[in-house]
């Protein structure tokens, strides 16, 4: 019983982390039709910046914020200097963003070396709480709470604000939105900044309980892409659903048949696509 509870909780909390990372990716993907292969490295950039800030200042919260902000700036600079030149050409987009991945990855290796690292949470968070059935690490519960709060904030942004209307209209039809006088390029830049912030801050949060090293970006990118595709490109609700699904499958298979963990995730992806080619909540599916 304890075991089952912990496996399920691990799946749900990992889902929370995946959602934080994938929510930015799905918005960028949906709005700009850019397959941003640099998204995984954004997670790592955030993690290492957060680690450095946390080590220098001792503040975990400051680490999370700085990790998010610096990553957002990196994303912003990459967008205006490089991505804009290849927008609309998916082959170049993929090669460029993959290339950036490799470069940043090696820079990280040069600066931080290849040993796995962890961001250290404050003493009072490094504990576990009694959830009735079993004790469970507080940090993972916190991450889940932050993921849910972030989901609500994003939902309100998308549903209730003018910027959210621009984003939704842009995901539906970019040209039509522009032809109504909306500066869609500015909307893209905002979404890219936001995506960078979300990926970077999730890197610090995730790095607090999952150790990270150069190369971990590929894992995070793969999982995030699966989450986005299962959920439906551009759909936040879909990303939440997909993240929960991938998190649970990952946790359950790793506890039972570890060798089949990756296969099960891609198996789930295939099953979803077989019945819903646009993902669970993607365009063309009923909302």
């Amino acid at each position, binding site marked *: 019983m304890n075991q089952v509870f912990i496996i399920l909780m691990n799946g749900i909390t990992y889902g929370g982390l995946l959602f934080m990372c994938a929510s930015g990716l799905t918005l960028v993907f949906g709005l700009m039709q850019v397959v941003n292969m640099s998204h995984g490295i954004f997670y790592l950039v955030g993690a290492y910046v957060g680690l450095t800030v946390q080590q220098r200042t001792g503040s975990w919260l400051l680490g999370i914020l700085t990790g998010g902000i610096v990553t957002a700036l990196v994303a912003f600079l990459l967008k205006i200097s490089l991505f804009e030149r290849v927008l609309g050409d998916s082959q170049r987009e993929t090669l460029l963003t993959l290339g950036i991945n490799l470069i940043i990855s090696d820079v990280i290796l040069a600066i931080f070396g290849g040993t796995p690292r962890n961001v250290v949470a404050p003493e009072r968070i490094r504990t576990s709480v009694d959830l009735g059935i079993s004790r469970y690490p507080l940090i993972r519960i916190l991450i889940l709470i932050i993921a849910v709060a972030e989901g609500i904030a994003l939902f309100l942004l998308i549903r209730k604000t003018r910027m959210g209307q621009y984003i939704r209209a842009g995901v539906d039809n970019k040209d039509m939105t522009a032809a109504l006088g909306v*500066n869609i390029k500015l909307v893209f830049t905002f979404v890219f900044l936001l995506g960078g912030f979300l990926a970077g801050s999730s890197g610090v949060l995730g790095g607090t309980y999952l150790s990270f090293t150069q190369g971990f970006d590929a894992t995070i990118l793969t999982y995030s892409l699966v989450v986005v595709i299962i959920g439906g490109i551009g759909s936040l609700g879909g990303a939440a659903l997909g993240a929960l699904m991938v998190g649970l499958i990952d946790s359950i298979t790793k506890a039972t048949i570890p060798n089949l963990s990756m296969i099960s995730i891609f198996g789930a992806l295939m099953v979803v696509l077989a019945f819903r080619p646009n993902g669970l909540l993607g365009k063309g599916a009923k909302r």
Partner: protein
Amino acid sequence: MTPILKVEDLHVYYGGSHVLQGVSMELERGMTAIIGRNGMGKTTLVNAIMGLAPTRAGSVFLEGARITGLPPYLIARKGIGYVPQGRKIFPSLTVDEHLRFAARPVPGGWDAEKVYGLFPRLRERFRQSGTNLSGGEQQMLAIGRALVTNPKLLIMDEPSEGLAPVIVDQLISFCETLKQTDMALVLVEQNLTFARAVSDQVNVMLTGRFAYQDSFEALMADHALTHQLIGVG
């Protein structure tokens, strides 16, 4: 007086095909029709004016200012309202959001309330997704969405496409209402009866060029010409 819209020797290519081959037109207030059979380049012309299709050569002027090469959002802000072929309603936006999110209010101009006043059906369904509406309602929403940007020039690309005759009649009376304002109107149509009912001037497009630019009456009186240009008469 400067014309509202002036198109000067416009050329557009899609890959190797020369879609617009030197199109010129000038228009004043009132409603001007652009007609022609399928694939003659009518929609390409509209897209080129909006900045959505790249122009190889030539210019477009709005009230004397050159707008060629500007991004679509700036062209829209300079005062062109766009009602696209196929309506292009946003599935993720409600009816009400369509009429508010891109609105550029001016005193005494168009706003969501005014559009609802004209199309009460839209008000009844204001919280629904735009794609739940019937074809006719979607068309009214697409026009309303463009009107609330308070354009100087409104371009409608085949608004009657796929609509029942009774809805087209409503569209005709609505166009008469629009003609009372000082907005200039361009109507791209295949439905000759509809185009003739609401416009005075007509441009007939034939393989990327205007083959006729004059009054509708003179065109319809010349059976040989209508037969040659649009295959009727």
